[in-house]
């Protein structure tokens, strides 16, 4: 069970309090004129990296907030968690900022 630092609560809490919410920084395209390719990419295509992933979590049984995390998918180690809307820290290896 992972231990996850909620950037809103300022505490590391057990994974049971959290819900994973998919890759982070996937921008939602707006409007009817979004192309098929862009829309497919938004809906379905994922980096799914073996290495650093930027992902979303929600502290669902805590403060209820969504936030972002950078995690190594090989070791499951968290590099950092940060608030929703914040940009991914630029100094993280593989960061897409």
């Amino acid at each position: 069970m992972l231990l996850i630092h909620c950037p809103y609560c300022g505490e590391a809490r057990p994974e049971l309090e959290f819900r994973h919410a998919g890759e982070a920084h996937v921008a939602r395209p707006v409007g009817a004129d979004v192309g098929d390719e862009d829309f497919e990419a938004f809906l379905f295509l994922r980096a799914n990296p073996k290495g650093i992933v930027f992902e979303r979590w929600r502290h669902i049984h805590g403060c209820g907030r969504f936030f972002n995390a950078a995690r190594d998918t090989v070791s499951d180690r968290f590099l950092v968690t940060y608030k929703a809307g914040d940009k991914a820290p630029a100094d993280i290896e593989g960061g897409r900022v």
Partner: protein
Amino acid sequence: MAEAFRIRGAGRIEGARGVRFSFDGQSYRGIEGDTLASALLANGVHLVGRSFKYHRPRGIVSAGAEEPNALVGIRRDRSRQTPNVRATVQEVYDGLVAISQNRWPSLAFDVGAVNDLASPFFSAGFYYKTFMWPKAAWERFYEPFIRRAAGLGVAPDRADADCYSNRFAHCDVLVVGGGAAGLAAALAASDAGASVILADEQAETGGALRGEKTALVDGKSAWEWAKEATETLAQRANVRILTRTTAFGYYAQNMVALSERRTDHLAEPPTDMPRERLWQVRAARVVLATGAIERPMVFPGNDRPGVMLASAARCYLNHYGVAVGRRVGVYTAEDSAWQAAFDLKGAGIDVSAIVDSRPSPPEDFVERATALGIECLTGHAVTGTSGRLRISSLKARRIGGTAIRDIACDALLTSSGWTPSVHLFSQSRGKLVFDADSQRFLPGEGPQDCISAGACAGALSLAEAVEQGFRAGAAASGKRRRKPVPMVTEGASWSEGTLGPAEDAGTGAFAKAFVDFQNDVTAKDIAQAVREGMRSIEHVKRFTTTGMATDQGKTSNMHGLAIAAGILRKPIPEVGLTTFRAPYTPVTFGALAGHARGALFEPVRRTPIHDWAKMQGAVFEDVGQWKRARYFPQDGEDMHGAVARECRTVRESAGVFDASTLGKIEVTGPDAAAFLEMIYTNPWSKLAVGRCRYGVMLREDGFIFDDGVVGRLAEDRFHVTTTTGGAPRVLHHMEDYLQTEFPQMRVYLTSTTEQWAVIAVQGPKSRDIIAPLVEGVDLSDATMPHMSVREGKVCGVPARIFRMSFTGERGFEINVPADFGRAVWEEIFAEAQKTGACAYGTEAMHVLRAEKGYIIVGQDTDGTVTPHDVGLAWAIGKNKTDFVGMRGLMRSDLAAGGRKQLVGLKTIDPRTVLEEGAQIVADPNEPVPMTMIGHVTSAYWSENCGRSIALALLKDGASRIGERLFVPMPDGAVNVEVCRPVFFDEEGGRLHG
């Protein structure tokens, strides 16, 4: 029977209370503090089990958790039977009943042992090469035969009468292992003020010191030092000692799982005490002091009862006061086994010979042995043993020589060296490093905050282990070590050893030199696997099953690896090391499940009206975690009768329905309407205060996600309802968009599902029923038309009254605070009864809504359905520029023709009710595979229509109205006519009064 092999004056449990226990029906005496193994050995019993494949007689090999052979069934009573218990771990108690396994009819005479005679046929992986002809015979004959032969113990056949529990704990330092290194680490860490949990799998701390007799720590006997250290620790408030507790799994971020056995050692366990307890410990730092495990020697006949680990014999003697034989041989490749021989000799046991495969073991050992009158055969190998159910002699030969000496013995102690227990370190994803000099895998770098100390970290002597323990404990506490490390004198070292069989002994074509005792894997099996192309140790392991028995190869893996590497002429690390996986030793399912049984398996959600419904004799159904009243049978009615009556009553008079399980979300804030515009397909901005609207919610992919009625209570306040099952995911979905896509919107979402009890009153008399109870709300059609909402009081309680309908009748849904739900319900029901109305359940609700063609998301839709498919295109705001799912709906296959659309089906025979899930075809005579063009989503007997009705999703359904189609059933196709999905009051006049 007297304990003939208990040695007076030896051991540490002497003088304890005597107990009686039985093994295979024979009664024996033991003493408290014995394990089943030590007690059996005290009675001269070595033969305790039969092996997995060849059913060879097997004896006790070890004195610990690594035991491969001595597995027994323990039976407390009919509902407390445990298979595959290691006799070396099970403590005896008065009245313990143990039975041997995998034998028939008896342990001494086992018919299955014919497998041993046929063993040349049953080579490694033989089953992959045969049993293929004739084809059907595998299933009918071969496999059942193999299955009956395999398996060990007998699974319990009754529900377990014991209970189990779970705990979480946090500490600064978790020390795994209460041997010398672990005790030292716990002392040092707790000295520095750290909170410490010390876990040890044995009944008491001390670890390998159980077998130790001569070593001194701080001038005391090592055992005494361990007891004093434990006493010191026990008195510290910052230390928790858990004995009989195995750390079995090392998970991410220093989460270590422990299983604590609480009652298996007690004669009469308290009934309220959990049998086992699972601990999940999150530690800032972990000290692994898990010790090392002695390996047996690999040689032909090394599995005969009486052949055992030297350290085990030493432990049985020095701790339990039990001699494992009267005339004992030793076969070793390292030093510590010599100490066992000296200890046994010192206790008056005859040691017939020490065979050491090394050409020149330490001279002082040889001298001492010689002085004690023990024959030393150095540079020799044991090439065989004899005896049927117990060893009677060993055969020794000079390595490279030919002459064979036959030496009588009734026990043979073997040691080929010590394997550090790196299981947990490896589980922590630490890298193991192979030390070529000592031929051992040792802990290398690890990603977690964890230190290995003592024999598991490569310490080669007690002094080194204690030193490492102190250092590790101090380092783990984050403080400098203050106290000096105790002085250790003497004690065996465990530096040398060998892997695989001695030269030219063991891999011969027909030799049975066992590597994995339990699974009957011999050195030649491993050689055969390699010859057949199994180059990776994982292949060797899976092909031969070595290391896959209940002991998971604790004594055998290194031998297997070395044999494979030797044949491949590759260094050991290149052949690989099989992955260590949790659990370290087997863990009871019950401990992992803990309290999560029966009612606690998952919480039950009940509405405030549940108990009333129960009193009325309602039959309930599970809907998610909720219990919902399905129907209210009266006077011996069956479900059909009850539902027909309820449906009829609602349309003739009225019905009262508990809708409290519906999800409810309060959406407030200045941007609430704008937010709902994004979440639903419908427009909301122009919805007047006091009005309601049916809303459809899509996922981003354009498919229906949920639906429900939304009422506007104020410009900035909406009362949203969702499906019963959908409430949590809808709230999550809304929060997601609010927090991450539209964070600029000033909107607040609050789940109010549990806050409101919802009482639906539906039917022509609904207004008459509630009118006397309502205050402050004009219920007339003119001021409160269909789809409106008012706040007022019902029965004196603040209420939200919705004029809405899921039945097609005039209807109201009254929301009152949950605590008042039951009281308000009872008053409404009393009024209802005056008009001849009834309570109705979910089944009648389903029928009534189907008569009107109202869909149920999740029943009439399945996650691949768009609003257009089910006739809800009207619910999509035509002028909206964005909402969740809008772009998804525009994808080519969602807009294309040929989609399945919601229709009604009327069976040509009105009495035939279709089966939900049945498929629809155009040509009932088409051969299989048939072309299915749709399926029945809902089907009921409609009392109000006097016929069966059904809803279906049908390809191009909207354009097939009036067509005759077929629903093929096993006993023939049912003829149906496609119709619009409305069966009752098509104009909808009844809704409006």
